[in-house]
């Protein structure tokens, strides 16, 4: 576009941007234009974050809440992957199943995952079952869609070659179809993890008695803006770590397939 800039310049400008952002924030909270209660400075948020690591708030420390959230996340996400990926693959391989399931799936897809909260609470309670169902509702569709795409758009030449060589259909599935849909499945998992984590936070804001979302709601009820912000930082960090980990897996698999770009 209009001018290329060097790496050094771009790093320098990046720091400038961050400094402006944090400086503006610090300035706003120091100037007294906005009450400190509603806009704590970045430093205060950092202090609160470190304090919460070993001080209890709303029944647990920050790592305790994160642990509770992450457990639910892991259950819901694994359940979504365990059901969604096989369903998507089967829909990609068997046209009849695709034609039967697609209309139901499309109709349900338009229900925002968070709208399942009332039924989740009614069916599974607000402890661990309800939130798991919400994560499932968020993480399930991308698992199905990407597994479906992976299975549907296999290079037809590979299947033809396997058929021509008289490979039995079970081996075609295990050795041709399944491996070639792996990259698509992994990117689906990455999208799923992001949506699942976000749905979990939403569920914990509404119905839960532990977890980071619950901690934030309690912070909000006690007008502790720094606790709410510390919760946001924690959620962002976990989300980022999840995404980075799955991105790493994605890259390793692409490299092994020679699909690297």
């Amino acid at each position, binding site marked *: *576009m*209009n*001018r*290329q800039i060097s790496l050094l*310049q*771009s*790093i320098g*400008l*990046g*720091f*400038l*941007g*961050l400094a*402006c*952002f944090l400086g503006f924030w610090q300035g706003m909270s120091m100037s007294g234009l906005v009450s400190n209660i*509603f806009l704590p400075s970045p430093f205060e948020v950092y202090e609160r974050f470190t304090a919460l690591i070993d001080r209890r708030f709303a029944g647990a420390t920050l790592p305790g809440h994160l642990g509770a959230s992450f457990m639910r996340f892991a259950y819901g996400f694994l359940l979504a992957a365990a059901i969604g990926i096989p369903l998507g693959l089967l829909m990609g391989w068997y046209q*009849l199943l695709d*034609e*039967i*399931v*697609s*209309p*139901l799936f499309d*109709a349900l897809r*338009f*229900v*925002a*995952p*968070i*709208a*399942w*909260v*009332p*039924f989740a*609470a*009614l*069916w599974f309670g607000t402890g661990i079952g309800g939130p798991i169902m919400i994560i499932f509702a968020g993480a399930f569709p991308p698992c199905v869609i990407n597994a479906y795409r992976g299975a549907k758009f296999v290079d037809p030449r590979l299947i033809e070659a396997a058929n021509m060589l008289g490979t039995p259909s079970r081996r075609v599935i295990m050795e041709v179809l399944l491996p070639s849909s792996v990259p698509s499945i992994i990117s689906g998992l990455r999208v799923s993890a*992001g949506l699942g*984590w*976000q*749905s979990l*936070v*939403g569920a914990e*804001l*509404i119905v839960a008695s532990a977890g980071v*979302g619950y901690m934030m*709601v309690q*912070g*909000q009820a006690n*007008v502790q803006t720094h606790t*709410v*912000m510390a*919760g*946001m930082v924690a*959620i*962002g*960090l976990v*989300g*980022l770590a999840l*995404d980075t980990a799955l991105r790493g897996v994605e890259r390793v698999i692409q490299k092994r397939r020679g699909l690297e770009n």
Partner: protein
Amino acid sequence: MPRRVSIGLATIAVAFVLWFGLTTVFGIIPSGRFPSPAETWSALVHVSGRGYGGGDLTLHVYNSLRLVVMGFLFAIATGGPLGLLMGWSRRAEAVINPIFLIIRPIPPLAWIPLAILWLGLGDAAKIMVIWFSAFVPSVINTFAGVRNIDRPVLEAAYMLGMPKFRFVTEVLVPGASPMIFTGLRLSLQASWTTLVAAELVGAFYGIGRVLNVAQQDLYPGMILVGMIAVAILGWGTTRILGLAEARALRWNTAALAAKG
């Protein structure tokens, strides 16, 4: 009728019969867990006639729709130009990108408690969280759209000495528009999710409010009505956006058709 459509209709018919059978005829699913078709219908009549959770269905739908449209338009109006700027100037990108890297991992729903602290339970807080959820996808996709424009097109515009304003309106925006619309679709979905969550956490009107009150009243019929309303609204607005896209990108499909 194509095979796909007839099988689809048959599936939906079977699902409906199963629903009716399991709830009403055999009573395997108790009505305290999931409503029968008749209970859902009576809940719909209840909310559209006498009203439920502070108003009738039209009022709730109107409020939710209004907030999504306002937050969404506000996000496009701010995110689009920022994305164009970042795509246009490497310097702007270098300054703004790190701030994005910090804010992006925080899911929009996590802004809800902060929005309530800052702005209370009214419309302003909802618009703030919808803005957050729709802003990020519109910036990122507009930015990517600008970077995807063919270089020769840009160079031709430079060479012909196109004035800046016309360059933006006649080259950058149309060139980026296929990606911009992808971003808008993601933004719209995020807006609905965020709005429903924000209304579930606390609101005076809206579909999320209906869901929340129905959950507290243990009223499965009303919960289902609320969910169907959310789905129809989400589907309808996506559809309108799709029509707008087809209209705005007519030149593009024409160009594609001419090519092959």
